[in-house]
């Protein structure tokens, strides 16, 4: 009996090994991607989670896109006009646009989608405040009429991140903006396989055979969104070592965000290739201006002077290939980046900081620095920052917690000793930082603004000026003024730029499009 059982066991293991080889061959029909995070929320208008935004780009299209040079290009729109007074915008949709269920895309779908987006997105709200009517002309064209000129209409409609204005079917877009949609009929290059949706395990998309791609080559979030594979599977892997093992074994084809600790191993593996499909991102130190001591701009400036970008970035990203110091509040290779950072050098200025603290009358009360110990992407920063702040003369209380607790804690407006906070760090993707009006922490409207709640009317005025600017030179100048104002008030400060690397199987995967956000069309698999 034992002999029989042993034989069966060996046979089973044999079958499993043979099947494993067969499965490796079968993989060529499907592109397997490890996304940056698990896809738990499917409505890209309801949340600002990056992974949900990327899911949005898989299955929905947008009226306009940003090309590889950051210029706005029509996407679902064929042609558009703006009246000489700048108040009336008319748009005509491309012919042949259809949803994945075969129904044509109409102006009614577009208007419902943009209306819903305008209720959720801060920039969308600004656009709708300036608008007097948004009506269809016929099933294929529509107009936007403004009370006052709103020169950034196209920038709004091509907004790549935060909440991007995706076009959905009217029935889904009519869902109240504070509720999540439950139907996922797309207008984009892929179809979401809801019947195979298994959050935490696998998210499946198939090619949308009814999608009509533009004739131009793919560029950024614009151009022809061609699909060269039958099926895309997002394989949810959270452990960095498991990701490395899986791609090395050929079980996945592409890792969207390379874990920094695996950089050396990936670089040394001849079967793998590292690429940078998005421009650099940005890490920031954010200060709470609502409560002491950073409600005093001098004390906020002293904290910013303590920053040692090189030390912080080295601790977090380990390898010098992965980061660059940069004193601009925008990524340094962004068209609006400015080298004029006033007193901020990115290098520690402890003596100057101590002098400022003395002048400002810092009372020595501990400043609470939030430390997200579980969040590997930024969890090396706080211990280094705490030490730098101490060297600058601050009394620091670094409080460890998980990321989920941190994002709850940062909503508390009470003083730090009553459950509030003083400082925390976070990171931004290039899609968030390319326009001062999209960049969430650039707010000066007090408690209505982003966490930290600075009150800075001059900053708000500069943003209004930016909105009205019509040419790039003017925008660049105002963006530089905004930067100086941020340092003057001590709103936040950059810790440096970092590269988003993707890892792919060399010779197997090609065609990744460079865009402000990670996009997965145009990819070929051999």
């Amino acid at each position: 009996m034992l002999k029989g059982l042993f034989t069966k066991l060996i046979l089973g293991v044999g079958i499993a090994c043979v099947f494993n080889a067969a499965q490796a061959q079968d993989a060529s029909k499907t592109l397997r991607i490890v996304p940056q995070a698990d896809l738990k929320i499917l409505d890209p208008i309801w949340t600002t989670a990056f992974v949900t935004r990327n899911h949005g780009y898989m299955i929905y299209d947008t009226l306009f896109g940003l090309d590889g040079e950051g210029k706005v290009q029509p996407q679902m729109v064929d042609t558009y006009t703006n009246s000489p007074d700048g108040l009336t915008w008319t748009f005509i949709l491309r012919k042949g646009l259809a949803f994945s269920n075969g129904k044509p895309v109409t102006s009614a779908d577009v208007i419902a989608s943009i209306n819903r987006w305008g209720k959720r997105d801060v920039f969308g709200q600004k656009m709708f405040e300036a608008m007097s009517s948004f009506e269809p002309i016929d099933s294929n064209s529509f107009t936007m009429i403004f009370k006052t000129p709103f020169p950034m209409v196209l920038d709004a409609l091509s907004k790549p991140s935060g909440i991007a204005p995706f076009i959905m079917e009217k029935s889904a877009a009519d869902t109240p903006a504070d509720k999540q949609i439950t139907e996922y009929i797309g207008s984009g290059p892929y179809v979401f396989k809801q019947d195979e949706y298994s959050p935490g395990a696998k998210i499946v998309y198939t090619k949308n055979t009814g999608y009509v791609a533009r004739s131009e080559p793919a560029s950024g979030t614009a151009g022809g969104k061609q699909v060269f594979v039958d099926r895309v599977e997002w394989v949810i892997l959270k452990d960095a070592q498991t990701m490395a093992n899986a791609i090395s074994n050929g079980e996945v084809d592409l890792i969207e965000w390379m874990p920094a600790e695996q950089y050396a191993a990936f670089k040394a593996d001849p079967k793998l290739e590292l690429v940078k499909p998005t421009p650099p991102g940005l890490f920031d130190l954010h200060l709470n201006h609502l409560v002491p001591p950073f409600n005093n701009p001098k004390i906020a400036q002293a904290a910013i002077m303590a920053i040692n970008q090189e030390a912080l970035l080295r601790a977090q990203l380990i390898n010098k290939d992965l980061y660059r110091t940069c004193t601009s509040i925008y990524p340094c290779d962004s068209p609006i980046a400015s080298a004029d950072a006033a007193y901020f050098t990115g290098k520690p200025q402890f003596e100057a900081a101590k002098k400022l603290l003395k002048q400002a009358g810092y009372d020595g009360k501990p400043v609470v620095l939030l430390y997200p110990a579980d969040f590997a992407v930024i969890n090396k920063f706080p211990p280094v920052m705490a030490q730098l702040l101490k060297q600058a003369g601050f009394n620091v209380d670094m409080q460890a917690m998980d990321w989920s607790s941190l994002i709850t804690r940062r909503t508390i407006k009470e003083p730090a000793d009553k459950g509030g906070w003083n400082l925390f760090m976070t990171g931004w993707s290039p899609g968030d930082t390319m326009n001062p009006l999209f960049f969430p922490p650039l707010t000066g409207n007090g408690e209505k603004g982003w966490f930290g709640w600075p009150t800075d009317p001059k900053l708000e005025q500069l943003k209004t000026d930016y909105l009205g600017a019509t040419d790039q030179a003017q925008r660049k100048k105002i963006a530089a003024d905004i930067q100086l104002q941020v340092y003057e008030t001590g709103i936040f400060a950059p810790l440096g730029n970092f590269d988003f690397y993707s890892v792919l199987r060399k010779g197997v995967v090609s065609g990744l499009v460079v865009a402000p956000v990670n996009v997965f069309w145009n990819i070929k698999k051999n």
Partner: protein
Amino acid sequence: MFFFIIRRVLSTIPVLIIVAVIVFLMLRLTPGDPAASLVGNNGTSADIANIRASLGLDEALPVQFFKWSLHVLQGNLGESYYMKLPVTELIAQRIGPTLSLSVLTLLMTILIAVPLGVVAAWRHGGWLDRALMGFSVMGFSIPSFVIGYLLIWGVALHWQLLPVQGYAPLAKGLGPWLSHLILPAVTLSIIYLALIARVTRASVAEALSEDYIRTARSKGISELRVLTRHALANAAVPIVTVIGIGVGLLIGGVVVTETVYAIPGLGQLTVDAVLGRDFPLIQGITLFFSFVYVLINLLVDLSYLILDPRIRY
């Protein structure tokens, strides 16, 4: 025995109520807000407040608890804050991988550990006995994630015999199912092999020193029959007890193993739910695991009746 079973089943009700109250309160009293997690990094305080209201998190704790309890009594464990799917559906989606891994681990463990323990007791002090003791110490000492990574490195990456991650349901065939589960099951079974083999060895060794064994041998019964029919049968109660405890421990063990091998089971679902503060999901999974634990204990108690006719409830 019928009344014993009824009594034991009824006794699970207060256990589950206590678990439910403790989990509910612990989740609400620890820091972390699901609304803040849901909104993403770009969201504002106003967005968070709106989501809190839509989830009913701004209501008083007793009101929240009353509403949830009412749903549970109707067999409704609620809906995940994130995935907008019923908790029961999510548990059903994930139970397959965890059950497969647990059953395979348990089978492998029992089929290897019990014979090993019996032989070690039979050859007490011999090389096999000493080897088993050495293996036991090793099995207890090496963390399962280390064993997991070593197996992945050798079997999956170096020899490329088995996949490094993932799960294939049994519906896709025995081959795919086994190929994804062999390494995780081996990883998980090492510690239980060590535990059960040691207990078996000790129990059988004690039984082998009893008078009835000497009597059996003097009657000329074969050594195999002495070991299985007389020694093992009489040593079975402690072995079954430790297997029962092992099944309970397995629930914790699968969390680490599922993470190392990226198996989308209940362990990973639990970790995700805790990190995201998905209250209905955490509460649902905890209730489910508590129920399973109570059920296992009941089965172990009932098995005593079969294994030892002297035991009566």
